[in-house]
């Protein structure tokens, strides 16, 4: 079946966010804790965590995971 217009827009977004070198989902998991701890602080994201941010743009599954992880720490340490 043909993709819907919304699906094609989403694909365009995914393609646009694609980089030559990317973290896979396991590398994302190894580094997402450090990324989460950084997002609560002031200042720029350290360059070594840029790949975590980029993975969130191209991987809907890890994006969903990250939103739930944020919930777990929303009111401080669980």
């Amino acid at each position, binding site marked *: 079946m043909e*993709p819907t217009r919304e699906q094609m827009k989403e694909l365009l977004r995914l393609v646009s966010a694609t980089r030559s070198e990317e973290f896979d989902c396991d590398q994302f998991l190894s580094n997402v804790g450090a990324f989460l701890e950084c997002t609560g602080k002031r200042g720029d994201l350290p360059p070594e965590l840029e790949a975590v941010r980029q993975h969130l743009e191209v991987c809907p599954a890890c994006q969903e995971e990250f939103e739930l992880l944020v919930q777990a720490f929303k009111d401080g340490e669980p």
Partner: protein
Amino acid sequence: MASLSTHRPGSERSNEEWLRTLEARDPDVVSDLRDYLRRGLARSFGQRDDVTDGDLDDFAQDATVRVIDKLETFAGNSKFTTWAMAVAVRVVLNQLRRRNWTHRSLEEVLEGSSGELEPRSVAGDPGLGVERQDLLAALNEAVENALTERQRTLIRAELAGVPNEEIARQMETNANALYKLYHDARRKLRQALNEAGFSDEDVRAELAGVSEE
């Protein structure tokens, strides 16, 4: 060894202490880890209609086992407990995705037998400007012509919201190989758009327009 029976929030134990005691399977520390994960998972998943208190107990237990299995993969660049919670969320989300998946084949999903998705031709959509119609038509063509059959199936399944684990199972591959296939497919599509005359800047500009709708 001092008794650990009093409650100690995760933040008060050092990473080194967590690792050393969990490697030794200290039952008090395993229990603290399970309680900590249970509290976090309740915040992440407790509001869902399809998750009971009993589920949360089971999830916390499964996640604890998984974290202990994966101790050697902890990179040490965050608090141990932050990493453990990330592992736990992945364990639980994968379980829920499995539980909620309706066990249809990819062919059935991609044929649109559910009728939930409204197929709509990209070309000739009156809501799109000329430039954007051209861009989406080029992307459509790239999906048809620049990808392998497996990459096309994967991209369509991703867009249809099929869980990665299910795609991997039905395509008889593993998560890492699937991600590589997905990454290669996106790179090929980007290349095909460039060759069709759409620079990365053009695409970004069009997307900025999309988000303003």
